[in-house]
């Protein structure tokens, strides 16, 4: 293992210390239990929006704390869901008196820990709504499995809900925005390399030089199929077709296209993917009206990409364009 770290057990703590120093104007970091909150919160009369998950996906979620997006983020150990006491304390810290929305990615551990936190917060008299994102079309959705994973849509939902909360919409209305993103967004990813969890010390799986994983998750969990490496255009097609046919998206739909880097893939390659994905979307009659290209939801140093399409309406467009000021996403100010 070759990593720029001190000790594996100190990785998350030292990262948080760095974030606190680098972005002191935007966020405050609380330790034990660990969570990141907006420096200017809680805001009275505004719904609090929080999320959380394992570390190793930076800038998600901590990098999205700030005006117009998240009020707090709870980082777990690398690739491990945070614990209920983190979410509970974060919920209390951001409560502006009108309730708190939990945006939860659909993983067994995240669901259980957030459920426990929501139960505890409600017991303390805080109104909590939870919306679970589950946009990964690589995983079959069935009542017999853990269901689809929450991936790229989570980032987009955090931006839209943050903007809706900023407009002082009610908890139910902010949660409705999240449910819309969940219902209208779909994603799929692929990996060129594995990644190494610091305390594991070696790659989560072996991927030979000439092979790739299609349908990879964001925790280095292997995908559904492994096959010989193909060209960027062919790979983009293998990701886009299952996404488009899933909802399905229809000719005339206006979409936001999010081409995400998994950590080890440079922007030069993400733009090559974006170019082809845009062409495929256009061929299907989809209008790409907004986009996001870059490493926003990573999987440590994994090379690879994920593509997310989100069908937009007029309200969502306004929310997307609204000002945001976080370490990881910033515009309109």
């Amino acid at each position, binding site marked *: 293992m070759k990593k720029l770290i001190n000790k594996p057990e100190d990785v998350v703590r030292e990262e948080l210390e760095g974030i606190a120093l680098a972005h002191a104007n935007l966020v405050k970091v609380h330790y034990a239990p660990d969570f990141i909150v907006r420096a200017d919160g809680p805001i009275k009369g505004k719904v609090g929006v929080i999320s959380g998950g394992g570390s190793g996906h930076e800038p998600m979620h901590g990098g999205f704390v700030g005006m117009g997006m998240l009020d707090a983020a709870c980082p777990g150990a690398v690739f491990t869901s945070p614990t209920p006491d983190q979410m509970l304390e974060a919920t209390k810290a951001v409560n502006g008196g009108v309730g708190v929305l939990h945006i939860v990615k659909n993983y067994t551990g995240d669901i259980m820990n957030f459920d426990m936190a929501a139960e505890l917060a409600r017991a303390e008299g805080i109104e909590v709504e939870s919306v679970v994102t589950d946009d990964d079309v690589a995983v079959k959705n069935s009542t017999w499995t853990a269901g689809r994973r929450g991936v790229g849509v989570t980032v987009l939902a955090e931006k839209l809900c943050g903007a809706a909360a900023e407009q002082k919409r009610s908890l139910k209305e902010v949660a409705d925005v999240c449910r819309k993103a969940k219902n209208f967004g779909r994603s799929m990813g692929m990996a060129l390399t594995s990644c190494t969890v610091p305390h*594991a010390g070696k790659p989560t799986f072996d991927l030979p030089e000439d092979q790739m994983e299609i349908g990879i998750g964001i925790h280095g969990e292997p995908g559904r199929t492994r096959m010989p490496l193909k060209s960027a255009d062919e790979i983009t097609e293998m990701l886009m077709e299952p996404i488009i046919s899933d909802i399905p998206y229809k000719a005339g739909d206006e979409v936001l296209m999010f081409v995400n880097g998994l950590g080890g893939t440079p922007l030069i390659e993400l733009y090559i993917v974006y170019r082809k994905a845009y062409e495929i979307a256009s061929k299907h009659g989809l209008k790409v009206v907004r986009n996001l290209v870059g490493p926003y939801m990573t999987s440590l140093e994994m090379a690879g990409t994920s593509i997310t399409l989100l069908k937009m309406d007029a309200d969502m467009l306004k929310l997307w364009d609204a000002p945001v000021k976080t370490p990881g996403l910033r515009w309109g100010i």
Partner: protein
Amino acid sequence: MPIPRDDVVAWIKAVAEMISENSSYLTQLDSDIGDADHGANMDRGFKAVIKKLPEVEDKDIGTIFKSVGMTLISTVGGAGGPLYGTWFLQAGMKTAGKMELTPADWSEALEAALNGIVMRGKAEPGDKTMVDALTPAVAALKQAVQANQPLNTALELSAEAAKKGMEATIPLVARKGRASYLGERSAGHQDPGATSSYLMLRVAADTWK
């Protein structure tokens, strides 16, 4: 013969040691079909349990179990935290005020733990989870206790049933947890949660014999 409180404490310490020794093994099993963190998470949790143990080890067994449960919930994370936390919280409720456990007490505590885990995780036998090790273990324990088998025999039967249940997860296709994302590719691997559950019951049989 009942299990005195100090032996219950000894079991918790032995479990922590066993988890520490098997941390890499559990993480390796989790790398194959999950996200490579089970051993490290459990080890972090039980190290915290050991640190907290001196505050409660002179109390009743229920209090000790509840403290273990709360510590695991707030330190393990992932799915393991709520599930193993639930194990000890439920066992703690069944053993409140007790300074020793009869075989029937332990059987009831373990059954409550299993029921709590099923409620929290919504897994059924055959889903390739810790429930596959615990379900036969609880059944075997209950049967042995009802037949008035001596404690060490009952514990041995329950650990062996857990082992069989754990091994039976190998050919299964996962339907719960992160391994379920792999679909058919999850078959051929032993479930890490079933493995840690078996190991805990193995340590119980060894500590309390």
